[in-house]
């Protein structure tokens, strides 16, 4: 376990505890800008004077996840997923324990798939997941690759999250998992039932890949607020920030998603992609 990122320096504002963030497999799971989620949490904390400490958790490490406030579990390509899946068994009991204790876990794409019971690729052996979420994923015949928008309610606050989905895995939720939200535009979990992502307690998972938090600042703030409330054992109100840049990025992405609504893919994939659709990206 190695400490890689110090919190950006910020004026101390009294009594905020240091938010401890576990960044899972940072070198394996960073298929496209996934580190943006960590940047969003750390910067939005720094701008409010909330100290953070990010800790890289690599293959072979066996941390006690319940000592963290937020766990980030990002996307990867098939090869990286296999390496992660082979290591995940070591970490799964502690991850489940942390989830039961209310630690905030945020997962995107491959992270979503590997928080489930298992992932069965189209070709290749099944991978065991961490069984934190009651869901299962199978490799599908088509790749969902497009701008997407989701109607999400978290802890009483309703909003839209926007981003780009790029996956061929099709996920079915079991009875103990709720969808994170319902699709406004895009394919979501399986392209059929309109569900997107999964949630259980403070575990949130989405197929919107890569840097999803920077242009959905309200979601980033919900994660920060919930993590602080759990740590402090009392309600927390976060100081509002000027989010005009973020909101503009959100609104442009939402327009793109809405424009693509009804189409299976937002753009024609390159020939290479059609010939040999890889299993999972993001």
């Amino acid at each position, binding site marked *: 376990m190695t400490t890689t990122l110090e919190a*950006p320096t910020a004026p101390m504002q009294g009594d905020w505890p240091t938010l401890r963030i576990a960044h899972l497999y*940072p*070198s394996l799971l*960073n*298929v*496209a*800008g*996934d*580190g*943006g989620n960590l*940047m*969003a949490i750390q*910067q939005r904390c720094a701008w409010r004077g909330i100290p953070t400490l990010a800790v890289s958790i690599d293959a072979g490490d066996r941390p006690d996840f319940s000592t963290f406030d937020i766990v980030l579990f990002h996307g990867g*390509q*098939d*090869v990286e997923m*296999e*390496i992660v899946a082979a290591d995940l068994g070591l970490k799964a009991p502690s991850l489940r324990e942390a989830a039961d204790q209310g630690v905030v876990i945020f997962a995107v794409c491959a992270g979503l798939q590997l928080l489930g019971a298992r992932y069965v690729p189209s070709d290749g052996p099944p991978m065991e997941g961490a069984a934190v979420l009651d869901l299962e994923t199978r490799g599908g015949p088509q790749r969902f*690759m*497009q*701008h997407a928008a989701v109607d999400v309610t978290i802890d009483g606050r309703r909003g839209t999250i926007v981003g*780009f989905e*790029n996956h061929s895995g099709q996920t079915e939720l079991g009875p103990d998992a709720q969808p994170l939200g319902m699709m406004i535009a895009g394919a979501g979990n399986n392209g059929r039932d309109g569900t997107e992502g999964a949630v259980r307690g403070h575990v949130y998972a989405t197929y919107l*890949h*890569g*840097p999803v938090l*920077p*242009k959905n600042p309200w979601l980033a703030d919900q994660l920060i607020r919930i993590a602080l409330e759990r740590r402090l054992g009392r309600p927390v109100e976060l100081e509002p920030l*000027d989010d*005009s*840049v*973020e909101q*503009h*990025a959100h*609104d*442009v*992405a939402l327009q793109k998603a809405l424009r693509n609504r009804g189409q299976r893919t*937002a*753009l024609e*994939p*390159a*020939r*290479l*992609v059609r*010939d*040999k*659709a*890889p299993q999972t*990206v*993001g």
Partner: protein
Amino acid sequence: MAGKGAAVASRVLGRGGGTSLPGMVARRVDPTILASLVAAQNIPVVAVTGSNGKTTTARFTAALIRAAGYPVDHNRAGANLVQGVTSLAVGAADLRGRTPRRVMVIEIDEGALPLLVEELKPSAVLVTDLFRDQLDRYGEIYAVADAFEAVARGLGSDCALCVNADDPIVAGLGAGHAGRRVTFGLDLDHDTDRITRAADTIRCPRCRADLVYDHVYLSHMGAWHCPSCGLARPAVDVAVTALEVDGLDATRFHVRTPVGDLDISVPQSGVHIAYDAAAAIAISIGLGVPLEHAAAALATVGPAFGRLERIVAGDRRIVLGFAKNPTSFNTTLRALATEGLPRQLLVAASNTLVDGEDFAWLWDVDFEAAAPNVERVTVSGLRADELANRLKYAGVDPARMTVVRDRPAALDAALAGIEPGGTLTVLAGYTPTIELREEMRKRGWVGPYWEV
């Protein structure tokens, strides 16, 4: 048929040497036109592909082959998809579809490689490197590598294969190739880069263990070996053994080759330039092209359009830096840093068919390194929104940012804030680079991009 396609297509030529239009028209008239104009007439072709460095490597290669006395055709405008390459062949042929016997040096988009190798039957194929680039267009990096390997396996023994030994996933391509195989790379006793979050293949291509680097030269390229299975960087046939980057205007290096050593000075900047020149020398050796005039030839090759191109804009100056993925962004920023990181910036990104739709990769660019120096940045392009958000989280104060989506208006806005004698640094994706450069051409600051 080839003649008819060529004749029709020639009528649409002349609108601009960089367009794909003639090739598109010609292929409609005759889908086999490219094979008829090239492979069927035994025209020697050099195919240059990979994620980064295609254009510059192809320019160096064309210069070396020309210097050895062979006439060359070259898609120097960078139209590297099937239509653009067909345009080049159509432009070279006469109206009866006869192609003059010149060497075609062609850069080829990674996705177009399998089809174009089939139609062109090249005499040499070179793979520069393989970086994550536009997941939404190409898919995973491993799928691209698999496609490259399939191409390499299909090459005849009369085709030379040149690969980058420093790039772990590229180094082993076509290992069983029956023809000549030439590797190139750097062989320095010090690091010229460090592993960043833009690095892709830092795991062993055979056993997937984490690779160990004795030296890191550029992103995931370096002197690598696998501590687990023992796979290691192969012997480097064409090796840069000393390297000095001198600001934005010169890179000097010593190259060890099987046919003798060379001292090279190129009027371009960066470690990547040494890779591109070594690649071009590897192709020459693969083809058996003599290198007597190599140093003199390379010394004349300035930057391709937008590759840190210096432009005089009235009483102000512009450095135009084309950047399309995290590695090319970071490489460009590093080259700029040799003269001090830019303070006045215009940064542009647009979603188009060639630039891709998903700009998640912007979060892998090391803007953090550049942010503290930024005094003013104009953010432009169809994805100015995402770019502005990225810059904000990199630490650029939004008060220093102006969003002007329209490219010509952004150029005006950016230049308006610059004192006479000052420099504006432009970092832009492919389409915004073309658009901004076209605007500069209209203002008389540069010639057409296909003539650079």
